């Protein structure tokens, strides 16, 4: 059995589980929408100001929503013993960990990307900026799942794990936030978004190569 097959089986299982617990997925999505909608209420309805803030607000909301969903990544598998069984399969851990992270992104990252344009319109972003927003989220949200997995793995089974994970993970999200929101900014101001997007892509590649190993180590530490 090769590795893509393992990843595919895992993906099918995770998606099936997510389908049977649709409520969890929708909660994260609503959280995303609500947080982004709070900002205009907080800073006032001035369209110029909102246009300026739009990209950043959507990105910050995405960061918080992604973090909120991290708890689900390994916690239930840890509680019911599935995680032990996964570790004891002949497949190298990085393989199924990659599958897990991919599943997490599909379940909690992709819905955010789909809803983001609506939020962008609320903030009055231009069409070009909306496109860049979606593209930057497409490159950036996988990084959130990848880096977040480290925090989720390290805090398995700890009391107050949810708050702790935010303290561990949010500082590490900062580069993604800067380049993601910067890309939208660049598109709005006409400076161009290419540089930001390519840096975001670079971060994605780096995270994709390194984080599975870190998560594998973290899970071993937590499960011992």
């Amino acid at each position, binding site marked *: 059995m090769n590795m893509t097959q393992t990843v595919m089986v895992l993906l099918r299982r995770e998606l099936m589980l997510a389908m049977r617990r649709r409520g969890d997925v929708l909660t994260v999505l609503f959280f995303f929408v609500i947080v982004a909608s709070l900002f205009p209420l907080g800073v006032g309805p001035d369209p110029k100001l909102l246009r300026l803030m739009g990209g950043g607000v959507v990105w910050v909301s995405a960061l918080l929503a992604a973090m909120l969903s991290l708890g689900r990544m390994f916690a239930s598998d840890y509680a019911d013993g599935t995680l032990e069984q996964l570790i004891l399969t002949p497949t190298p851990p990085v393989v199924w960990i990659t599958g897990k992270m991919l599943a997490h992104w599909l379940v909690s990252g992709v819905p955010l990307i789909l809803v983001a344009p609506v939020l962008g319109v609320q903030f009055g972003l231009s069409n070009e900026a909306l496109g860049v927003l979606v593209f930057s989220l497409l490159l950036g949200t996988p990084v959130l799942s990848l880096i977040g997995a480290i925090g989720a793995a390290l*805090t398995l089974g700890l009391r107050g794990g949810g708050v702790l994970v935010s303290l561990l993970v949010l500082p590490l999200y900062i580069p993604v936030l800067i380049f993601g929101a910067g890309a939208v900014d660049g598109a709005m101001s006409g400076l161009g978004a290419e540089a930001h997007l390519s840096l975001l892509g670079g971060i994605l590649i780096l995270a994709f190569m390194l984080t599975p190993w870190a998560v594998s180590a973290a899970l071993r530490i937590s499960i*011992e």
Partner: protein
Amino acid sequence: MINRFNKYKYSSPATFYGLAGRLIPWFYGAAALFCMAGLYIGLVLAPTDFQQSEAYRIIFIHVPAAWMSMFIYVVMAFWAALGLAFNTRMSFMMASALAPTGAMLTFVSLWTGALWGKPTWGAWWVWDARLTSELILFFLYLGFMALQAAIDDPRRADRAGALIALVGVVNVPIIYFSVRWWNTLHQGASVSMTKAPSMASIMLVGMLVMALAAWMYTIAAALSRARCIILERERNAQWVAQMLEAEA
């Protein structure tokens, strides 16, 4: 019986405990001497800066604290890596012992940065690349300590902390680069603290001496904290009993 768990004699907690106990007073002494010398140079000998008048004297604290805060994080990650690679308990203990001092110095550099910023830039806080990075570093320290505090099992706490320290140290350059990028893009305050005053050589000497004091202090504090951690963890070991009986 415990002895067979120690692969390396000099990394054994018992050896370390005694050695550190003998070294600590010397490091505290050196720290006090350097600190007095540094303060004398910085506060008394160094001339008034023609641009910033006396406010610049804050850099004698600020810059060494900032240097040290970054350096301690790297050293912490080094011990963490050593611990994960060779499974030496002392390395993990050193990493945990360094963190609170590192966090304290990071806070000092933020605090003094704010107090320097008010008269110089007219604002307590400016989103300058250095200050922002320092703030993020502070969060990284807090994350490390919070994670270790949340885990009861010392073995897991050691390893989990070590891993997050390593992840952090890989990220620090990326974070620093991204924050600088963001800063230049938004044309924020780009005045940097170190190049602002036209550095007279006496100022540089003062800063270096203060940095040495910070070094010595950090070593002393970390060693004594490591001793406390050893005592807590090894209180069931034979050598602790022998040592306490010998002292009593």
